């Protein structure tokens, strides 16, 4: 029983990390039709930004609580700003050339990952965490690391915040309408470019946040951290339905749990099950679990 609980909570934490990465990808694709291959690098930079900040603020090998909190803020803000700069500087001139946009995000992703290796060396580094975060709590006999609970709580808060943003704010309205018909949004007098920048920055910030929490989840960081998880985030976006935040949340839970249970009981089937699920969804419901056809 305790194994099931441990696997479930760890699977949900993995799902939370995938969701933080996938939510931005989904929003960006929904509004802008851009497959952002730089998203993995944003995740990595979030992890390194948090790691660097914790190291600067904390003394000793363990991170302080203040350091961890500041690390999360730094990861979110820095990567959000980085994403805004990429959108304004590199993607905006290419709005009428979607293929070029994809190539640019691919190039930015590769360059940022390489830059991480150059600045901080390619080898993995332990991610310092405050004692309370690295220690475990017992839930029905299962000893679960506390960072799993924090990750799940952060993802739930982000999901609630995103849904409120999309449903209750004018920009959320613009994003939802833009995902249906961008041109008509412009024809209503709305500067859709500004919405693009906002969504890209928001997606980047969430990837940065995901990177900080992902680093705590894995306990170590390396320059390939983001790209290793990006493929699963893309699968989550496709299974959930392109442009649907709720769909991404649902798909992330399915993928996270399938992967954890698959890997535990077979040691090899976790990723295979994910691919099977993807194939099944594409065959039976190509628009994804909660996606709408456009």
């Amino acid at each position, binding site marked *: 029983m305790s194994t099931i609980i441990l696997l479930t909570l760890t699977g949900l934490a993995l799902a939370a990390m995938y969701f933080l990465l996938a939510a931005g990808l989904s929003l960006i694709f929904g509004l802008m039709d851009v497959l952002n291959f730089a998203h993995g690098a944003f995740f990595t930079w979030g992890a390194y930004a948090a790691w660097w900040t914790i190291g600067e603020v904390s003394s000793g090998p363990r991170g302080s609580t203040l350091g961890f909190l500041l690390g999360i803020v730094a990861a979110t803000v820095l990567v959000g700003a980085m994403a805004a700069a990429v959108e304004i500087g590199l993607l905006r001139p290419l709005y009428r050339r979607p293929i070029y946009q994809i190539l640019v995000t691919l190039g930015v992703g590769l360059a940022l990952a390489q830059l991480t290796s150059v600045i901080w060396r390619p080898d993995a580094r332990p991610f310092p965490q405050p004692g309370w975060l690295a220690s475990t709590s017992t839930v029905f006999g299962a000893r679960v690391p506390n960072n799993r609970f924090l990750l799940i709580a952060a993802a739930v808060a982000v999901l609630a915040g995103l849904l409120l943003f999309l449903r209750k704010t004018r920009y959320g*309205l613009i994003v*939802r*309408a833009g995902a*249906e018909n961008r*041109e*008509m949004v*412009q*024809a*209503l*007098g709305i500067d859709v470019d500004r919405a693009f920048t906002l969504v890209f920055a928001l997606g980047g910030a969430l990837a940065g946040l995901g990177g900080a929490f992902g680093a705590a989840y894995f306990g170590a960081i390396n320059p390939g951290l983001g790209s290793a998880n990006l493929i699963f985030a893309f699968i989550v976006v496709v299974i959930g339905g392109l442009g649907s935040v709720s769909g991404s949340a649902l798909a992330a839970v399915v993928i996270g749990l399938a992967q954890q249970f698959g890997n535990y009981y077979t040691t090899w089937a976790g990723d295979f099950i994910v691919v099977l699920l993807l194939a099944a969804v594409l065959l039976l419901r190509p628009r994804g679990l909660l996606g709408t056809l456009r």
Partner: protein
Amino acid sequence: MSVAVAADAAAQAVAAEPFLRLSDVHAFIGESHILQGVSFSAVPGRVTVLLGRNGAGKTTTLRTILGLIPAARGTITLDGVEITGERPHRVVRRGVGYVPEDRDIFGGLTVAENLRLAQRPGATAERWALVHRLFPDLQRRAGQRAGSLSGGQQQMVAIARALVNENRLLLIDEPSKGLAPVVVNQVTEALAAIKGTTTIVLVEQNLAVAQALGDDAVIVDDGRVVFGGSMAEIAADDALQARYLGAGAHR
């Protein structure tokens, strides 16, 4: 009246103070040269109907005015200010409302959200009152997802979206398209109610609707203006209708 004389007469009629003026406007869609020198003017407070066969360039003309399709050549002025090359949201913010051919309402949003999205700063309570008076059904269905409405109701949302702001120019593309006769009458009545309060450029294949609403008329054929005059002249000229409006024109 000959085409050239009619065009001259129309040009003189609108020479006073045209609100919208297109001069030798060319536009492409991909490699296709759709507009090949479109020139006409719209007089303040009047309804100018763009007529012509399918594919003549009427919709492209409206989209080029809005900036959704870039004008490759020529000039477009609005109230004396050149707007050629301006981005669509800037053109719209000058006081232009657009009702597209396929309505293009946001089906996943509610009726109220569709209207709220369209509302620009400065939209007054009077405009909302007007919308609710013209389309009382929409008020009752404010919370309903727009995609679940009937075709006629969706057209009302599309028109209401253009009316929630104090627009100085309305570009309306085939408001009667695909609607049942009784709904066409409702839409025509709504547009008749706002006639005279703003300048309207209307694309309409249904001659009865065009006649009911139109003051001035322009016939577009193969991307060029081949007639400019009054709507009454076209209505009285069967030969002109047969030549340029063909099977697309129906009463």
